[in-house]
């Protein structure tokens, strides 16, 4: 199943790439070059608060900041708080964690026109250092007995590093406000966890495993834009 999902994701990336490049070839019009530095943007993920509101298995509230070079290259930094507080479906185990996470990376915009729409592919390196709790109040040794009832494994330490392959798009809503989304294939690079076992959820990564999928819905604000300069340089042909 994992291989199927991975190949599906790679196929989608390739299709996106081909569509972008074919589209560009078909329209061989002269597109003015954007200036080297086109501004800064900050963004917030809208999916995290929604996941938290609907009591999802875990939620990630994150914000990010990115630079814009030539309207094609977007170095980006993302940080957030990941949390999970989950009880087992059939047994009274409880897993709990809440910790920050960080990502750095780069996006590339395949849309050659500077019309406010962007088709992005990118990569991220993510890492998190966190503590997690595991409890079962009803746990007991059924045969040998136990001096105490219940299991409490609080404050277990974990660290994780992972890579993300990102595909997404965004468009301009109004003036300096943009809306976009990404989907992400995440592959674990390294993790160190407690001897008691792996955490159910890794902040920033998602449900723990060698790989997983994720996504964001981003509200993006262009700040310190150089729109006017771009317009001036390019004779007002472009929005950006």
């Amino acid at each position, binding site marked *: 199943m994992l291989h199927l999902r991975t190949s599906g994701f790679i196929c*989608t990336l390739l299709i996106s790439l081909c569509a972008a490049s074919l589209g560009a070839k078909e329209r061989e019009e002269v597109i003015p070059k954007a200036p080297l530095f086109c501004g800064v943007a900050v963004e917030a993920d809208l999916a995290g608060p929604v996941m938290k509101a609907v009591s999802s298995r875990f939620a990630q509230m994150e914000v990010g900041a990115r630079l814009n070079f030539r309207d094609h290259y977007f170095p980006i930094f993302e940080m957030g708080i990941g949390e999970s507080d989950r009880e087992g*479906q059939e047994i009274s185990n409880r*897993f709990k964690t809440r910790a920050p996470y960080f990502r750095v990376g780069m996006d590339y915009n395949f849309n050659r026109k500077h019309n406010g729409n962007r088709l992005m592919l990118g990569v991220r390196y993510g890492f998190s250092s966190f503590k997690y709790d595991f409890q079962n109040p009803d746990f007991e040794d059924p045969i040998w007995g136990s001096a105490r009832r219940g299991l409490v494994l609080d404050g277990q330490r974990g660290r994780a590093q992972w890579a993300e392959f990102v595909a997404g798009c965004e468009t301009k809503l109004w003036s300096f406000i943009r809306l976009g989304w990404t989907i992400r294939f995440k592959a674990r690079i390294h993790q160190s966890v407690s001897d008691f076992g792996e955490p159910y959820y890794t902040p920033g990564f998602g449900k723990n495993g060698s790989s997983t999928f994720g996504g964001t819905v981003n509200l993006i604000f262009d700040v310190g834009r150089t729109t006017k300069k771009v317009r001036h340089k390019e004779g007002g042909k472009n929005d950006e």
Partner: protein
Amino acid sequence: MKKTIVGLLCMVGLAACEGIDCTLNNVVALNIGFYDANGAGVRLADTLMVTAAGTDSIIFNSGTGVEALGLPMSYERDADTLVFSFKGQDEEEAREMTLIVKKTNQWHTESPDCPVSAFHHLTGIERKGGEGFIDSVVVVNEDVNYAALENIRIYLHTAD
């Protein structure tokens, strides 16, 4: 572009699915095998019963033709005392051997949906009784976990 959108939606749908993927082989037991003096596996001619000393638990009851068995270990004790009772068909009283299995314990968790287990590492073994029908007891694998490997070999006195 339509294909791309359909592909992306399919992937999101797949990613949304979740099952309870606990380890299927999630039994932790002290695995014991019986061997003759030459090191070949044997089936016990006697009826075997194993009790957990200090409790009222019979952890293996009235086994016949036993070649190997798996016994539950305590989750948190430093040593488990196992009383083996061997009883032949013509015998009125069972012959007993006591094994004190010393160990360290390690909790093991996977997911809130999966049962918690205690793994063990055997640090020593002590035998009391069994002279005349047990030659020796040997630890062959110290780790008691999901791997379900044989941990202890009991060599019966089968040759003079």
